[in-house]
């Protein structure tokens, strides 16, 4: 049996990325994700990899762009304000169809905000974090084990679809320790990348990595092609978890740390005879629309539990075509909803008093 170790979420991300074959990390210090960089700084030099503390978040994402251009897996990590700075580079990665892993251990905003956990980058991340029409794969882990598992998956899928992937965690997930069984070492990345800029060796025409196309006809075509790929991803790569949903009257929708909190509330509600279940999106893009629409067929109401002002709630309403009421239990600014608060919302819905 594989060994189970105790790790912080941030450390699990770093180790899982290394185990998945990532050998190039670029970052800039920011709370609460600094452990990722610290772990990489210790480990990468010993395994022949790159750890580089970049001069800025902007430089870091562009270093990732450089490595990705050569067909090698690369990653960067930051927290919310730093991700704003990376938006430029993420857009270029998407435009040049390059794979990369970006980790966002979210903190409260906007602006400098605070350093306590938050989920307020939901819109920013799921709508395509940067200018232009694009998506990134978005994963929302809700345990340290998932931090490790989804890191590998994100890298693998980024590679498969040649697009950036984001691990969207929060300060709590990053800082907490839980037992984790690390995945096996693997190389999720092909060695043969005919598109990469590796030097022609005078054997082939030169490869060009670019997001620029001055012909509107061609650029439109590229966008169309990219969205064909996105469509396929929406059909095949959605991940979610259902918890006590089969007989539920009320369906909580929550991801990451708020899903953990909601789980406590559900256990308590069930003790009180309230039929509550949960649908936990694991991928936020693609969003589990079909699963939610199916749930809307048999539950009476939804309750989104979020650490933002109701950003995911909009996606839930869209997914179920507003067929059922969707209520919101929300704390922001670094505050985390308590199970009692969630339970209070559940009770109100059950009594018909909180139908959004």
């Amino acid at each position, binding site marked *: 049996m594989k060994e189970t170790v105790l790790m912080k979420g941030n450390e699990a991300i770093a180790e899982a990325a290394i185990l998945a074959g990532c050998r190039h990390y670029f970052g800039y210090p920011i709370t609460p994700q600094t452990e990722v960089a610290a772990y990489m700084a210790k480990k990468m030099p010993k395994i022949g990899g790159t750890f580089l503390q970049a001069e800025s978040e902007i430089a870091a994402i562009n270093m990732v762009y450089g490595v990705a*251009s*050569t067909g090698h897996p690369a990653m960067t990590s930051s927290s919310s304000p730093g991700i704003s700075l990376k938006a430029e580079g993420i857009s270029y990665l998407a435009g040049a169809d390059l794979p990369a892993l970006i980790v966002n251990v979210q903190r409260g905003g906007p602006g400098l905000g605070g350093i306590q956990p938050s989920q307020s980058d939901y819109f920013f991340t799921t709508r395509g974090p940067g200018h232009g029409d694009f998506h990134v794969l978005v994963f929302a882990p809700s345990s340290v084990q998932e931090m490790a598992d989804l890191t590998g998956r994100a890298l693998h899928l980024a590679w498969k679809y040649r697009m950036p992937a984001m691990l969207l965690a929060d300060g709590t997930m990053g800082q907490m320790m839980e037992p984790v069984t690390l995945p096996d070492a693997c190389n999720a990345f092909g060695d043969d990348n005919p598109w990469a800029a590796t030097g022609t060796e005078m054997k082939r025409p030169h*490869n060009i990595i*670019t997001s620029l196309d001055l012909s509107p006809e061609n650029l439109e075509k590229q966008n169309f092609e990219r969205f064909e790929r996105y469509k396929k991803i929406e059909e095949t790569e959605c991940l979610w978890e259902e918890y006590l949903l089969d007989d539920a009257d009320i369906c909580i929708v929550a991801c990451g740390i708020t899903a953990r909190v909601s789980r406590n509330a559900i256990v308590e509600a069930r003790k009180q005879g309230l039929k509550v279940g949960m649908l936990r999106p694991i991928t936020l893009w693609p969003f589990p629309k079909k699963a939610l629409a199916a749930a809307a067929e048999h539950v009476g109401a939804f309750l989104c539990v979020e650490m933002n002002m109701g950003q995911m709630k909009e996606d839930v309403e869209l997914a179920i075509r507003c067929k059922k009421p969707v209520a919101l239990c929300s704390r922001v600014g670094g505050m985390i909803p308590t199970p009692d608060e969630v339970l209070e919302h559940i009770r109100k819905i059950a009594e018909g008093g909180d139908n959004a």
Partner: protein
Amino acid sequence: MIVFEKPHALTDTPLHYCPGCTHGIVHRLVAEAIDELGIEGRTIGIAPVGCSVLAYNYFNCDMIEAAHGRAPAVATGVKRAMPDNIVFAYQGDGDLASIGMCETVSTAARGENITVIFINNAIYGMTGGQMAPTSLLGQVTQTSPYGRDPKTQGYPIRVCELLATLDAPVYLERVTVNSVKNVRNAKRAIKKAFQNQVDGRGFSFIEVLSACPTNWGMTPQKALQWIDEAMIPQYPLGVFRDKEA
């Protein structure tokens, strides 16, 4: 007898540059250096945002288009992943000395083993002639219509001198291409900047004073003279760093 030949490292794509622009000359010098060192097959170039944004169509080696100012960061990533390849960034003054100054200085300070070719023509060309960080005092541009005024628009940045305050760079030289003699000298410098990288020596940086007749509002001939008369007094040619091997 062959008297003139296009370097192999240049493609057959016709250049889009304006008449009298010296980008074409510098492209050729870079390509000649690549040919003569026999490194085309392992060279990866980084194009900037600016007039030379399409440089990736002109060089026969693998090319990467970077975001505005980020070429040194992209080059850093490439070089770290592919240390045996030859990596160069080709950047203009807005790209390198304004929006990308942080990347420029930091990459030089790390002493990345790359080659940077810096085209200084004292103006933003592609967007139609706005003031650059290297525009001269009094220079009239679209965004300094009354001439660059140091009180409100500051002074031009001498990048070679600035980078010469750092410990890491191995080679910093400013050249120009406004005469046959100067073109020959620029060729020598550019080739050396690539040779340094082949030898694993570290960060080499060549600043090329270039002409932009279109946006300077001059004939090509006059523009070449203006380099002598106005630019060189502000940006003296010469070697600012040449570490012994």
